């Protein structure tokens, strides 16, 4: 799925893990080393890349890669 690839490629620019090694259960902060700043900056860039609008309160409940992908799927379905 192209968007998942794009998503993981973007994640890899923010951490020391290659896109192909990023799995759904990985936690942004604990496993991928994101800080609050890098996570929120990443989400802003994600909005621009995928041309979506994220709910600023809901994004704060996202902790894992899988949860983020799920959130994107929900937005796509709305």
């Amino acid at each position, binding site marked *: 799925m192209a968007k998942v690839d794009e998503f993981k490629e973007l994640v890899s620019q*923010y951490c020391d893990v290659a896109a192909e090694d990023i799995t759904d259960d990985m936690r942004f902060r604990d496993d991928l080393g994101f800080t*609050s*700043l890098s*996570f929120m*900056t*990443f989400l802003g860039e994600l*909005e621009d890349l995928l041309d979506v609008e994220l709910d*600023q309160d809901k994004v704060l409940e996202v902790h894992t890669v899988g949860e983020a992908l799920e959130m994107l799927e929900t937005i796509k379905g709305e």
Partner: protein
Amino acid sequence: MRKEYPLTAAQNMHYKWIKQYHTQQVSGVSIVASLKAELDFGLLKKCIQLETERYGCLRLRFTKPDEEGNIKQYIAGSDPRDIPLKDLSGMTLAEADHLMQQWAYVTMDGDDRPMCDITMLKLPEGFNGFFIHMDHRLIDSCGLVVLVNDLMQLYTHFRFGSDYPADLADFEEVLEDDLKKAANEKRFAKDKKFWDDQLDLRGEPLYSDIKGSSVLEEARKKHNDPSLRAADIELDDLFVKVKDYVLEPEPTRGLIAFCMNHQLSMTNLLLLGIRTYLSKVNNGQEDITIENFISRRSTHKEWTSGGSRTIMFPCRTVISPDTDFLSAAYEIQNIQNKIYMHSNYDPALIYEEIRKRYHTPENTTYASCYLTYQPMPVRVDNPVLENMQMFSKWYSNGAATKKMYLTVSFTRDQGMNFSYHYQTAHLTEKDMELLYYYMMRVLFKGISEPDLTIGEIMAQV
């Protein structure tokens, strides 16, 4: 033909201060880095010249201002200047320190000229190294730490055969990327909406001063406006002094543990400490604004590209005294996270909107305190050099655009250093002592009894 670029928002912030205060001194940044070891200065010179090629921001120059005062930037292809060596070894360390402080005051005036000077140094007590003096539009403190480390890695590679440092990101590519993002209309509209919504929700901010409400009262008298909500900034006497306080490793661990246990960032805890102090000395004022500096470095490229990426945004907190300490910390964290998402925005536009809405007088502000939290240690991170004694120091440019600028960083033994830069025209060392003392009292009372309300904490400390 050379490629010219407009300034980024972060660079414009410094340029605005240069124009407002009529001196480039406010944009100076200086550091000395040295080792207690013999250095091969011929080799060090070659490494500095190589570093100038690797780290494109060192070759950044600015054009002459146009009729509207705007300038552009470009990257010079090379910098063939010699790297001078100065011998201060005959001085005491205090004398050498004093001399370097004088160098940090030197302005880099004129256009189309190098804005970075590096001097190799023989220092007292067997220390040897280099002094870097630059314009902040070229680099921020994170960028300087990367520079010092990369330079030392180059030296140890050629001198001791250690690994060649990894490639640095291309400064020009990252700059182009930044300018492209800033020009994204959809992103701009989202960011503008966020900042406008803050004003719609809360109206005009309200000034709070380290010394209490009398400062705003004075401003109201001066402007003959009893409802004025902003106070004047100092434009003439910019002299600044620095007072450092060190929090020992043990209590520092307590703050870190509290942050980890409650998923809070240290920046937000510090913001809560400062805003509670300001509320206490301003008759319990609930609406407090602190300017918080954000180092916009998140991707690999942003970390190693150099450049000036640090930018300040207002952190506005409206917290009732009935709010418990932990909830107040989360309130700050919530708003800060949203600010991070909109940190591509040019903060100058926030103030333009405020002036448009509330007709705030020129040269006034809502904030007396500015915070930078630097989790990145300022040290040479190089295994070849780890057993060598080091001397490094940041030098103040001596001209403060801000009434009080607090930099919080970690010490080598994992304590925390609180470095207060304060304008001597309005503040004294005693004011800084009180600020530090009450900040600590607030923070430690809060982390030990997080259910206490902000009002209770203000009453008890």
